[in-house]
């Protein structure tokens, strides 16, 4: 048997291919061009992400996202209502606190819409990062048993947050209609800010998920850090409340540009491009750092987790 194979390796290959062609036509055609050469060596390159491989595994990304969404509100009494409750209740609390008592100046925009417009982004970022940071630990059974591009795990967690995001966007649209606000052409920019928020959440979530594998401190530090971050971002107060001198420093926090830009888009206000530019740069930097950290930690996941 061995000798036969050795004497005619090419024949063997061809025979197999044609066999595949005749038999289960549909199936085998799919896998034929998957005939790749895999090289396994000691270390992967720093910051290198195999995009082609990631693309090949896109269906797994889809299935893991779908699973996360499907599981999230199972075994809860009110189910999906949680996705609706979170933005509504937070908006109501902010309105009472900062419009009723503290009286923040929000110009022509009614305070509830003003608050919810930021909460749409913030709640998504908050949930996505929280879910992503624990994603490797909660999927440790996958990581130690099967290979796939590891990046898929935190990405699926962040993507699953989009499900809740859609609910809060619907509520936001409802509130805008309720107050009779008329959108300008600026609204076409709104999706850009939502997508940027996704990119930022993905970058941070990925980095934290990798760090959390080795340093479980993340689990304790994160809720606290997120709280500070919320206060430091123009969520319940307008960005221009911060003095002119400090505003650009303030924009290093990417949420500043994201939220301010999103509001400008929604309420037809002029865009503050300096703010947006700095925040965009800050997001780009986060992406790079995140990829470097991730690729450095990735190789040891299965051994450390």
């Amino acid at each position, binding site marked *: 048997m061995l000798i036969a194979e050795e004497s005619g390796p090419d024949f063997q290959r061809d025979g197999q291919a044609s066999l595949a062609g005749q038999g289960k036509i549909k199936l085998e055609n*799919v*896998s034929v061009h998957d005939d790749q050469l895999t090289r396994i060596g000691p270390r992967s390159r720093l910051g290198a992400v195999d995009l082609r491989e990631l693309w090949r595994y896109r269906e797994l990304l889809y299935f893991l996202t779908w699973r996360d969404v499907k599981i999230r509100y199972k075994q809860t009494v009110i189910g999906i209502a949680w996705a609706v409750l979170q933005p509504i209740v937070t908006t109501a609390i902010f309105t009472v606190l900062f419009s009723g008592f503290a009286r923040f100046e929000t110009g022509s925009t009614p305070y509830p819409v003003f608050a919810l417009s930021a909460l749409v982004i913030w709640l998504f970022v908050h949930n996505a990062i929280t879910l992503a940071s624990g994603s490797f630990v909660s999927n440790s059974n996958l*990581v130690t048993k*099967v290979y796939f591009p590891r990046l898929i795990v935190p990405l699926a967690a962040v993507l699953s947050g989009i499900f809740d995001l859609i609910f809060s966007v619907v509520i936001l649209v409802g509130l805008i209609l309720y107050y009779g606000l008329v959108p300008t052409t600026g609204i076409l920019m709104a999706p850009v800010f939502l997508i940027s928020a996704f990119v930022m959440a993905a970058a941070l979530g990925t980095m934290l998920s990798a760090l959390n594998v080795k340093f479980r401190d993340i689990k304790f530090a994160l809720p606290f850090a997120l709280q500070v971050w919320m206060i430091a971002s123009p969520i319940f107060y307008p960005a221009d409340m911060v003095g002119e001198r400090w505003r650009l420093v303030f924009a290093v926090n990417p949420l500043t540009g994201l939220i301010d830009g999103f509001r400008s888009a929604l309420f037809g206000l002029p865009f503050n491009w300096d703010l947006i530019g700095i925040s965009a740069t800050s997001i780009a930097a986060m992406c790079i750092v995140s990829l470097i950290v991730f690729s450095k930690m990735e190789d040891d996941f*299965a051994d450390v987790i």
Partner: protein
Amino acid sequence: MHAIRVNGLSKRYMLGGAAHNSLRDLIAGLFSRSGRQPAEEVRALDDISFSVNEGETLGIIGRNGAGKSTLLKILSRITKPTHGSVEIRGRVGSLLEVGTGFHNELSGRENIYLNGAILGMKRSEIEARFDEIVAFSEIERFLDTPVKHYSSGMYMRLAFSVAAHLEPEVLIVDEVLAVGDVGFQKKCLGKMRDVGRKGRTVIFVSHDMNAITRLCDRVIWIKDGKLKLDGAAKDVVGEYLHDQESIGAEKHWPAASAPASEYVRLHSVRVCDEAGATTSSADIRRPIGVEISYEVLKEGKVMVPNLHFFNETGTCIFVSHDWEGGWRNKPRPVGKYVSTVRVPGNFLAEGSVYVGAAVTTYSPLEVHFVEWDAVAFNVIDSIDGDSARGDFVGDLPGIVRPSLEWSTETPDRRSISFSNRSTPGRRDPRD
């Protein structure tokens, strides 16, 4: 043509010093002047080279801890080697476990898709094979029931069915056949053989030497991280079994070659009966002792001797460490020690038991030495009717066989037949 080519593969794990478990350790490590503790290195694989031809079925055998799992993990790209390289031609499917990623809240149908995707199948492939998978698993009626309501047998059947329909060019299979009922196991073995016949390359790890010789053309034997033997299945399995038989009830290590760290050295391990005599067979009803003697060479460490018990399929029956023998949290002075663990009667199942011996410091974690398969013994049931098997003489499954109390009431007659008589096999209170 080679489907897999493995070149000088080595894998080392760092234990102790290098592994930081929290930021505090890392920061403390950065600032401490004395530098880090010397990291302890464990060589899981040491310079392994072999290649597998396309269409060949290769078996991998070896004792527990020999490095088989590490090799499989590297081949399936779960972990990276420290040195060396592997080239694999074609799509790789690896089954280190069946049912990876199964979620209890999801239905059987949903889990087929999820598990299929996790194993690397495309959606179109899963769809095309869906009916076949369902038919193979014999769970049609419960397809839309969450798997948390499945019996363990149904769960395993479904899990295996998905795995069995994976058709990559290279299939890597760990010991996953030891699940499910015997009939279903046969079905799976048949399915695997079909995969082999279709010209696919299969790598198969098992402790079941029958399955190995039936399924594999060629076998490699890994011992202590090194490639010990590579050849025709029958020959390698024969050599391996011969070697395995040489594990006795007692083993002494000469000081020069004994497993040791700078703190402690293994001296001997032996299996003994109640009277303290060395024995290689244990009556299933009577307690049996395992004794580990070691010498502390340097003071200052809290040492915990621990013993790992495996059955013939390589399943860990239990691990026991000395947690109350008077040395808890106390560093041991230099000198010789003999620690004995007593395993009660009516607890282990029949068959061979392999014992691994180690001495470990838990905080910070440091494995001073570990010697897998140091000794072995056979648990024998003479079928006198007073062991847990009672009057049953057939094959009794299970990795342990405790003798448990049963009571049966007959409420109609208001009488209770509760037997508490002391049989010779029942656990002695002194134990």
